[in-house]
């Protein structure tokens, strides 16, 4: 830049709108709340907390360049290019990025870093920026057939979907209680693990992912106590194809800041973490997850991470890309590997081909669907009373078969076993022996074995020998004619009467409704047993409300709109400031004075401040501001000729000297 600006605010003011928008997108903390004008925006960009955030997003090269810039003070691009031992092209890109992020700006004296940066440690003490800062380290890979990766991944994906369904299906019928802390009890976790045939970390992952996908939430159960229930969205999810269901889970996982891997481990205080407790979140885990997967996605087809060295090489790359990120990263990468393998996003050390589109926000369902087993519409019946479905069954068939037989083994195929209990259960639900015979003959591709026929007939023979019924009221009379008469009364049609024995009628109408009706019909009944009503009700599967979440698209649209609004506001503020008469350059608000002070620091000029001292007396002082930090201004006081600290809130005005 040949000309340079007087301050960062000046530079930002000169930027075109789209560049300003980019800055606000890259550093979202600058946009909330919307700054009044460029001066305030620049001031905010120079605060410590905002700088720290911005630095966190830099890679090793960018930090190295920034480091060189800070030590050089004011300099030129070329000098930096010479000082940094990396190829000029990427160094130049790094410089541009620093400018875009408002971490460096072109002052009249040359390129310089934003003032506050000098006081910040760029990297943790144990990380060194010394040495060449060329591109990110390569990943250790080994060849592996891509189709094998896809097959193994699809296998895991199918399992994950099936297990989440099994988990939530069970919890819909018998929801586990929610702990007071909001989590899930250890016992419930263990029970779920046993039911799903997986270990506890895996089931914890499924639970967390289900919750993140909005399929599981707390809600009141039957007794009104708080429990973990499948949500209404779960029913919608069930109706989808397996590949679509997987997409829901995989997206939820990628976008979830939950650290389910810590479930079962102890927190620093020695308390065991429960699944689903609100505390199990990490601000960095999403980024680590995405970066790990992105790194894997970048591998050429047919290459996967090498078995032993692949993990560490990913860690090395992430350390290069984000040198400032915390120590927990190694663990987070390891979690990402395990969790993504369980969910079928990766397999055998490689990213499954269908999962790549997840990272770009596209729909992987179709690609995955091609790899999943086709639904089958038949079973194989065997003489040991098992039925094997040699693939995932069509949903309606699976439901019906689940009624008449017990599931014995699950996986790619499902093994069902017919037992007297299961056949009886089917009959309880209204199946007749004939229907059962027809059903098994219909869906079986093999002849129905004789023992199964016998089982159904045997069960049918003893089924219903004793009958139990449902009645709201009974009517009893020693006089059979009285009852016959009543049955034939025109009003009796609406009473739901049925004759069980010559002297006994039952009614489906509740006693308190029936009684006046009977009286109206001219019968004078006596209420025999006030407590004689029987109430049978089958509990429904329970659901909680789906937590409201904004769809991805809406979120980004909203963000874009907000950024645009902020840009407009800033512009308006700038115009207002420009239109203000020169005499009122004196700023009166604390934020305004801060901005003015920072501007002065950046420009290295003296200002006159109005300062209220301990006694409440306001004095004007000419100072050379040095830095603003923690509510205090460090400045050289011309009058006292020494460097002093001023409390910012006591500065009532700032104007140019």
């Amino acid at each position: 830049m040949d000309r340079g600006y007087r301050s960062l605010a000046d530079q930002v003011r000169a930027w075109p709108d789209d560049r300003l928008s980019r800055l606000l997108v890259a550093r979202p903390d600058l946009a909330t709340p919307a700054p009044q004008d460029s001066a305030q925006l620049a001031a905010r960009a120079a605060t410590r907390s905002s700088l720290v955030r911005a630095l966190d997003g830099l890679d090793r090269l960018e930090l190295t360049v920034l480091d060189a810039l800070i030590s050089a003070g004011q300099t030129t691009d070329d000098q930096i290019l010479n000082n940094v031992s990396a190829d000029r092209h990427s160094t130049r890109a790094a410089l541009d990025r620093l400018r875009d992020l408002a971490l460096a700006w072109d002052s009249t004296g040359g390129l310089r870093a934003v003032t506050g940066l000098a006081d910040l440690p760029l990297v943790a003490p144990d990380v060194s920026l010394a040495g060449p800062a060329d591109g990110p380290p390569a990943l250790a890979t080994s060849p592996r057939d891509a189709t094998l990766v896809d097959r193994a991944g699809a296998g895991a994906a199918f399992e994950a979907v099936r297990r989440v369904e099994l988990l939530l299906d069970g919890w819909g019928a018998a929801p586990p209680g929610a702990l007071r802390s909001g989590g899930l009890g250890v016992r419930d976790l263990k029970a779920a693990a046993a039911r799903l045939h997986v270990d506890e970390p895996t089931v914890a992952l499924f639970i967390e992912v289900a919750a993140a996908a909005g399929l599981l939430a707390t809600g009141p159960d039957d007794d009104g106590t708080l429990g973990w229930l499948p949500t209404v969205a779960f029913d919608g999810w069930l109706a989808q194809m397996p590949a679509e269901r997987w997409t829901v889970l995989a997206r939820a996982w990628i976008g979830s800041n939950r650290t389910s891997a810590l479930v079962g481990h102890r927190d620093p205080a020695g308390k065991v973490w429960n699944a689903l407790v609100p505390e199990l979140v990490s601000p960095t885990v999403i980024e680590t997850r995405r970066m790990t997967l992105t790194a894997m996605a970048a591998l050429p087809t047919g290459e996967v991470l090498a078995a032993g060295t692949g993990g560490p090489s990913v860690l090395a790359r992430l350390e290069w890309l984000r040198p400032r990120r915390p120590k927990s990263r190694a663990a987070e990468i390891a979690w990402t590997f395990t969790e993504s393998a369980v969910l079928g996003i990766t397999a055998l050390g490689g990213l499954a081909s269908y999962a790549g589109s997840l990272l770009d926000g596209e729909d992987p369902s179709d690609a995955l669907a091609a790899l999943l087993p086709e639904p089958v519409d038949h079973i194989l019946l065997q003489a040991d009373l098992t039925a094997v479905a040699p693939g995932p069954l069509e949903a309606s068939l699976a439901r019906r078969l689940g009624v008449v037989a017990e599931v014995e083994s699950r996986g790619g195929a499902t093994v069902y076993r017919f037992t007297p209990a299961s056949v009886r259960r089917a009959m309880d639900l209204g199946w007749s022996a004939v229907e059962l015979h027809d059903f098994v003959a219909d869906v079986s591709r093999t002849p129905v074995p004789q023992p199964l026929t016998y089982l159904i007939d045997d069960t049918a023979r003893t089924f219903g020998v004793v009958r139990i019924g449902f009645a709201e009221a009974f009517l009893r009379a020693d006089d059979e004619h009285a009852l016959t008469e009543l049955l034939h009364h025109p009003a009796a049609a609406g009473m739901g009467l049925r004759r069980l024995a010559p002297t006994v009628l039952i009614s489906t109408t509740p006693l308190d409704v029936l009684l006046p009706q009977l009286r109206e019909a001219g019968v004078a009944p006596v209420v025999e047993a006030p407590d004689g009503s029987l109430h049978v009700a089958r509990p429904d599967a329970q659901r909680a409300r789906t937590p409201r979440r904004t769809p991805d698209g809406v979120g980004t649209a909203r963000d874009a709109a907000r950024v645009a609004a902020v840009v407009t506001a800033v512009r308006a503020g700038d115009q207002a400031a420009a239109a203000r008469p020169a005499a009122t350059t004196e700023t009166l608000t604390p934020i305004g004075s801060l901005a003015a002070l920072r501007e002065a620091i950046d420009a290295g000029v003296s200002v006159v401040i109005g300062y209220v001292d301990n006694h409440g007396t306001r004095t004007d002082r000419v100072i050379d501001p040095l830095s603003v930090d923690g509510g205090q201004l460090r400045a050289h006081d011309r009058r006292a000729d020494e460097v002093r600290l001023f409390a910012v809130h006591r500065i009532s005005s700032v104007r140019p000297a």
Partner: protein
Amino acid sequence: MNDGPLIVQSDKTLLLEVDHARAGDARKAIAPFAELERSPEHVHTYRLTPLGLWNARAAGHDAEQVVDTLLSYSRYAVPHALLVDIAETMARYGRLRLEKHPVHGLVLASNDRPVLEEVLRAKKVAGMLGDRLDQDTVAVHPSERGNLKQALLKLGWPAEDFAGYVDGEAHAIKLAEDGWSLRPYQAEAAESFWHGGSGVVVLPCGAGKTLVGAAAMAHAQATTLILVTNTVSARQWKDELVKRTSLTADEIGEYSGTTKEIRPVTIATYQVLTTRRKGVYPHLELLDARDWGLIVYDEVHLLPAPIFRMTADLQARRRIGLTATLVREDGREGDVFSLIGPKRYDAPWKDIEAQGYIAPADCVEVRVTLPSADRLAYATAEPEERYRLASCAREKVSVVERLVAKHQGAPTLVIGQYLDQLHELAEDLDAPVISGETPVKERQRLFEAFRSGEIGLLVVSKVANFSIDLPSAEVAIQVSGSYGSRQEEAQRLGRLLRPGRDGKVAHFYTVVSRDTVDADFAANRQRFLAEQGYAYRIMDADDI
């Protein structure tokens, strides 16, 4: 997706669709590491267990092969977690080795130090190990060879035994193949055993396990101790050995409750070895009476627990176990693995049957309806009485009569548990009874008469269940049996599965009382038989 015959389930079972074109190949490929659990008509179920995987490892298969087999025959994608689990399990076998050290004798060696450290810290092995010789080697008390192997298996780190065997006292034994020859699978079984050193051969009843034993002896060419379940079985071994090998009757001794002979080849019963007097086993010295070169365990699945303890001390001798099934009712499959050895040969029943060596059996369940009076008596009986009441229903007698009449001329066995019922039946059918009370001589005479066709019908009690040889029974009628255990069913069916003359179909009838606990046991039996792949029919007593 590939169109394989195999479906891998997440609970580690493998489903094999038998009608599939590649089913035969797949079966051969998975047989070394997966255990056949059920083999009904359409889909066979195999299970992956640590023992099965270690058996495969012992036979020289590695995890890569197993994973490759699963992937190439599997119809659907195989869950990654399962593959990892297989690799990890298999890698556990052989991390520790028992070796012969030129100076220190028996040592436990490992090149995986953490594993060795873990094991050394385990309480279970504490007393069995001696000094630490170097970082990877620990001395082992020679007497603890078996116990150590047992303990290591329980810890999940089964050791591979390279410490070798003593040759034993040499004794010439040859198969006398005049007019007969070993069936291919028998020769193969003996061969696999010999190469493995020690181990178990799994063959169905009637497939000629005795001959596998004889072939193993011919390999060993050394004095041999044969352990069998009972005296009858001991005599049959002796007869068979005299007939099929170069051994003469003088070279074979019987060591049982009645005779105590110790000869180059000695056949002892489990019972005599496990007899205890005043807290000691007086016949234990038999094990050291000679320098045995080979020990044969007949019916390993019935091996009593004390024999396991004795076997632990016999680790330096070659051991062959013969059995129809590795499944033990007491769940001590692991002890068989560590003390006798890994499975060396296995052929599923159905396959041998298909090769024509065993007659296919037709299993029929005949249901009798109890008259109302009996049903009432049954309903009001004490629970412990119920089974007897149901089993001994009068109605069964006429059914058995009709069945016997139907198979007039075919050698027939009637099997039952309750002596009263058996005697009653014998009277009605005019047939001799063999029970526990029958003297051995008489028992053998009757069996011989049955074998020669002199007697066409025998009523036998439970004693007939174990290791007797009734080669020509073509029909068996079971009227009662204790608790339908899987092992008992295997035995029962074994009686029938002898090669019938001119490939005749054997018949297996069970007569059960409808709607009683008897029928519940029958349901177990039905499941077991169907799982073994036998056709199973149910009939009403009136339809005979």
